[in-house]
């Protein structure tokens, strides 16, 4: 429980990865690291397909982010219409961890360039919801 607080609209509530939201509450974006073989995962998972261990620890996403690609949506699926237009993006951090999310609306469209440096910032939403977005460093 608790995972349904993640994101603008939630489609999933029950997962062993629910502590992800507790880390967001503390301002931390976390993936998981396998204690068995050392593999890093983002999105976080609670089972390692490399060594079959389920002994994982939470591990903060670190380093400077680099924008890999993005797109600005003009149409949205149900529940997101009020946010339009918004920009989704894929950003690569340290250890080649790629994180999917949205660019902050503080970044003007003309300022966006592939390869630009970004950081993540946890954002509190209405109704006790929580997410993260990418901002300029």
């Amino acid at each position: 429980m608790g995972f349904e607080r993640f994101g603008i609209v939630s489609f999933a509530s029950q997962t062993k990865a629910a502590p992800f939201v507790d880390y967001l509450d503390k301002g931390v974006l976390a993936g998981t690291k396998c204690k068995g073989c050392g593999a890093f995962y983002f999105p976080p998972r609670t089972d390692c397909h490399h060594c079959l261990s389920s002994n994982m620890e939470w591990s903060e996403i670190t380093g400077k982010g680099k924008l890999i690609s993005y797109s600005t949506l003009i149409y949205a699926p149900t529940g997101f219409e009020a946010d339009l237009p918004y920009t989704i993006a894929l950003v690569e951090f340290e250890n080649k961890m790629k994180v999917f999310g949205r660019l902050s609306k503080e970044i003007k469209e003309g300022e966006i360039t592939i390869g630009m440096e970004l950081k993540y910032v946890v954002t509190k939403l209405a109704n006790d919801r929580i997410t993260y977005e990418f901002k300029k460093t």
Partner: protein
Amino acid sequence: MKDVAIVGVGQTAFVRGYEGSIRELAFDAFKEAMLDAGLTSKEIDASIICSAPEYDKQRTPAGTIAEYLGLNPKPTFYIETVCSSSSSGLRVAYSLIKSGLHRIVLVLGFQKMSEISSADSQERMGRGSDVMWEAPFGTMMPAYYAMHARAHFQRYGTSSEDLALIRVKAGTYGMINKKAVYQKGVTLEQIMTADVVSSPLKRFDCCANADGASCMIVADKEMVKSISKKPVWILGLGAGTAPITMSGRESLTGLNCARVAAKEAYRMAGVTPQDIDVAEVHDCFTIAELMAYEDLGFAEPGEGKALIRGKETYIEGKIPINVDGGLLSKGHPIGATGGSQIRTIVLQLRGEADQMQVKNPEIGLVHNIGGVGVYGNVTVLGRD
């Protein structure tokens, strides 16, 4: 190896808002394929029914459709890999025949996308990506392909105008395909000035939804002798997958599932990209066709743009691609699409493609992708 052949093909017109039930839609494609092969329902040993179930009101539609087509009491199976469902169906048909379990297998793909309301459709669109980690940001199919386009532009200098040239080609052939939902040409200017859907993709970069069905009849080589005037042999089958999450992908400048599938299909068929005389590729978006040029080895990575700039993928070009208008003009009824692409290549190899006919092709290829490069099927076909 010439062990398993396609001996009959059929396709309904792809339309907006088909005014009938899914079983009736399926029957139209079934009838055309059965007449093509000269078979009756009793002669079909097993059927494979393909669609994307989130658009179906009927639960487990294979049962309903098998009954309506008179295929009881023979076995029927439901196969789904979203947009590539019916080429996955062909792969299963091949294995059922090759194993000796069945001798004649029917593959029927259908989709009545208008079966659900546009509000329901809009809700489902938001759940096409990973529902835990990506859908909560408000994702859509066009936005994901747009991210691939942006990455390709950045790395290789491809432009929106290159993509527009692909749409111009699709319009050129859509005009001569009587089964296409969009039978109009579009000019470069219309394409370039159209509204943005998800940057950098604009309205004409995206294929249209449609209702439709396709049908293929597949047989072993002994049955082929007694059935078909012109069998088209399945020479190579390749299939691949990639993570549904963008985080899990190595790169966004191509689709790895397609590269894996192509390699496997070429190996099995014992051919190279240079041996392909005509191809159908999954152009759900213009950028998808451009990436397919490269993923299939028709161009080096980054060089796909040269093929379309030089009109090399037109009928008269080096490698004619989507000369039936592609998904961009035909429309994309999810479960029916792969079977429609395969039908086009079967007709090409038989020399029955009318105005769309490429000169004397011997080997054809079909590239059919499910989701945003989650599932990829590449099929190599050859004539007798």
